[in-house]
């Protein structure tokens, strides 16, 4: 599958979903993905591009986003590059972790955590001047993913939210091993 370029932030979500629809209709992602894997891929890609659309600071009047998905024997490798200034991904993830321990379910702050839970080897780094790249691998979801949301290495709060009182353990690298390069906060 070739790299696809998107330049219209107003339609990029619809355009990406149309592309994913086409791949899924063709069976281009099976193998290695099964139907649930395709759903998780769509969710992960959507969450990141939604993050870019809502929060990224694009210096150029013509923002660019590239999506590349490569099939491997048991996973897909996804790369999403963009021409934004970048942002502090680790800081945002830490903020979302804090929100999880609010006394009542928070309205915001789940997108990046959902992304990291669905994926392995998540990496966010510069890919050139004024160019950022998010990359990750994604396998078919199993029970470990479904059981492991949001608590890769977080201590139990003294008074956790009533609906999130079970600790779980995320497989893969988890939050602390993200090889992130600090970026200017674009928000």
């Amino acid at each position, binding site marked *: 599958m070739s790299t696809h370029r998107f330049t219209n932030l107003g339609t990029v979500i619809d355009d990406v979903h149309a592309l994913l629809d086409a791949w899924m209709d063709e069976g281009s992602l099976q193998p290695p993905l099964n139907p649930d894997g395709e*759903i*998780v891929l769509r*969710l992960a890609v959507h969450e990141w591009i*939604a993050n870019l659309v809502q929060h990224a600071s694009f210096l150029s009047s013509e923002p660019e986003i590239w999506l590349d998905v490569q099939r491997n024997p048991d996973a897909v490798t996804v790369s999403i590059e963009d021409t934004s200034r970048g942002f502090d991904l680790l800081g945002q993830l830490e903020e979302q972790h804090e929100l999880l321990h609010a006394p009542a*379910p928070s309205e915001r702050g*789940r997108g990046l955590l*959902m992304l990291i839970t669905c994926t392995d080897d998540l990496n966010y780094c510069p890919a050139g001047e004024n160019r950022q790249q998010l990359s990750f691998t994604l396998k078919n979801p199993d029970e470990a993913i479904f059981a492991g949301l949001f608590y890769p290495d977080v201590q139990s709060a003294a008074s956790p939210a009533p*609906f999130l009182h079970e600790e779980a353990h995320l497989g893969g690298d988890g939050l602390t091993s993200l090889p992130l390069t600090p970026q200017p906060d674009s928000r």
Partner: protein
Amino acid sequence: MSFTIQKTSPSAAVIRVGKALDFRNAAEFKAACQEHARQGVRFFVLDFSGTGILDSTGLGVIFSLYRQLTPAGGQVVFASVSRPVQVVVQLTRTYKVFRQFPTVDAAVQSQHAAQAPRPTGTA
């Protein structure tokens, strides 16, 4: 990509979520639900049949509705949950917060059963 809201009683409404509930229509969804809550709706059934996308922002406004309703004894329940939404529900453990029903009718019936007057004991 629009949702529809239909009241089934003065205190209950069914929201057909449609193809997507995400950052693009979440604010509109939230405003509409808040308006119905102000009008007295306390029981919301979210019909997810055919929903292909529920993202973190969409989930967030559902939690916002939950926070608004629960102090007043209200409920938000899910019905006809599509597979993409089920994946999100499992990932986020949302099933711990929101009851799920196989159909909208089952969800609406559960509210009727909850509101039915209890039979009094015999002497």
